[in-house]
């Protein structure tokens, strides 16, 4: 697995160092301009998880997966190395973003807002959700699949809102959004309790494990 991680890191170093650095600074600057800590965390984590995903799409671009998988590795090792590297990159990039957001002159966020335990757990939750959903798509369908999913979600959202506005849908979209909002607000309100942290960590681990199992299942069936 170590060799696979090094392989990815070295292969993409020319992309990572300049682009990843500038990107992290830019997102950090952007995050410092947002007044709501939760919105700042949400946007930063999403943009942060794009970095490892972009790296993994580069293998599609070079069509080099057949060579990587001809080396003495199993498909499980390939997928596991992607998850480990992906998480390591997201954590490093997010740490840079947070530091920049906290230290940038004229920022609208207080340092305590984005470095609090709540914000850190919220960031972990968002990172897990984004990465866990997008990785299986990326592993199986590549860059096209991932973007098709993201665009598809937006189109679906637009269609649902359109139908909802015309009262064609048999359910209330607003009610669903409000319920989700309440659930998140409730989770956020209780995050201070150790039991909730443990519960959240357990859920995130379960989500990551499910995502890894799905990615592995899909990758084992992928013809290279």
């Amino acid at each position, binding site marked *: 697995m170590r*060799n696979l991680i090094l*392989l990815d890191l*070295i*292969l993409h170093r020319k992309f990572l160092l300049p682009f990843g650095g500038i990107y992290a600074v830019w997102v950090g600057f952007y995050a410092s301009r947002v007044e709501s800590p939760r919105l700042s965390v949400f946007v930063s984590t999403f943009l942060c998880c794009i970095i490892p995903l972009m790296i993994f799409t580069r293998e599609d671009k070079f069509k080099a997966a*057949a060579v990587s998988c*001809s*080396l003495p*590795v*199993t498909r499980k090792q390939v997928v596991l190395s992607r998850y480990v590297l992906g998480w390591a990159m997201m954590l490093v990039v997010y740490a840079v973003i947070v530091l920049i957001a906290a230290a940038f002159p004229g920022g609208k966020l207080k340092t305590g807002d984005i470095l609090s335990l709540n914000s850190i757990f919220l960031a972990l939750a968002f990172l897990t959700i984004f990465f866990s959903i997008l990785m299986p798509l990326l592993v199986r369908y590549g860059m096209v699949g991932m973007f098709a999913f993201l665009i598809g979600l937006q189109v679906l959202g637009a269609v649902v809102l359109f139908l909802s506005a015309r009262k064609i849908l048999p359910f209330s979209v607003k009610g669903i959004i409000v319920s989700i909002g309440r659930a998140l607000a409730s989770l956020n309100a209780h995050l201070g309790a150790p039991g909730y942290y443990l519960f959240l960590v357990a859920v995130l681990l379960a989500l990551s494990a499910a995502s890894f199992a799905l990615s592995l299942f899909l990758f084992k069936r*992928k013809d290279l």
Partner: protein
Amino acid sequence: MPNILEIRNLSKDYGDFKLKNVSFELPRGTIMGLIGPNGAGKTTVIKLILNLIRRDSGTVRIFGLDNLGDEAAVKSRIGFVHDTPLFYDRLRLKNLKAQVAPFYEKWDENLFQRLLREFDLPPGKIFAKLSRGMKMKFALALALSHDADLILLDEPTSGLDPVFRRDLLSRLSAIIQDETKSVLFSTHVTSDLERIADSITFIRDGEIVFSTGKDDLLDRWGVIKGGNDLLTDETAKLFKGFRRREFGFEALTDDAAAARRRFGESVAVDKVTLEDIMFFMTRGDRRV
């Protein structure tokens, strides 16, 4: 002689193409040529051996190990060259080598450097800037530098000049001399196989037509040439394939001696080449 590779009833269905119950063995210390027309399934077989595509059924045992259950251990002893050498093409050769070498315990850096020199490959050159032949040479250098026990070559000589092709064939012959290593070599350049192969496996439309010793094949089979009056419904059944021309016919037989006995002096019986076999068995007429 124990087999280094054993394939049993290997099948793969792509929808528009099916590999059907492919079975053959590659004995230790031999070179096998895998021949067949375009789209016959040669690359599919090699990819299935490397687990690059998912098989529908069948087994592949390499060094006595299952190629899925012991995937990493098996692959560490395989040197491979794909028909299209795809690497991260913006990297220099020395950097590409630095990516691949750590995966192999038996990586021989001195041998790799020597091969680079002998193949005229500049380590500082960017992979994308190499010609197809040079890319193939680089893939070969990687495949030959870790003391692999099984070397899988998918169309390795395409794009190579005749001088280097001969050089490569000599190297492959040298590799199997200690009788512990084997080579599976897919190619359209059948003359290469006539020089070095010990056995030939012919695949057509996803099915193995035959898998046999090369010398036996070339000794036993023949090309018959005779007048069109000799080619009837009955005699056509004796042939693997034939071609009728204005002034006579040519036909492929798997028993040249029997054909001589049957037709006597009225036909000429020529020695067969692998190219003849491929031609008659893929493009020759089937009906009189």
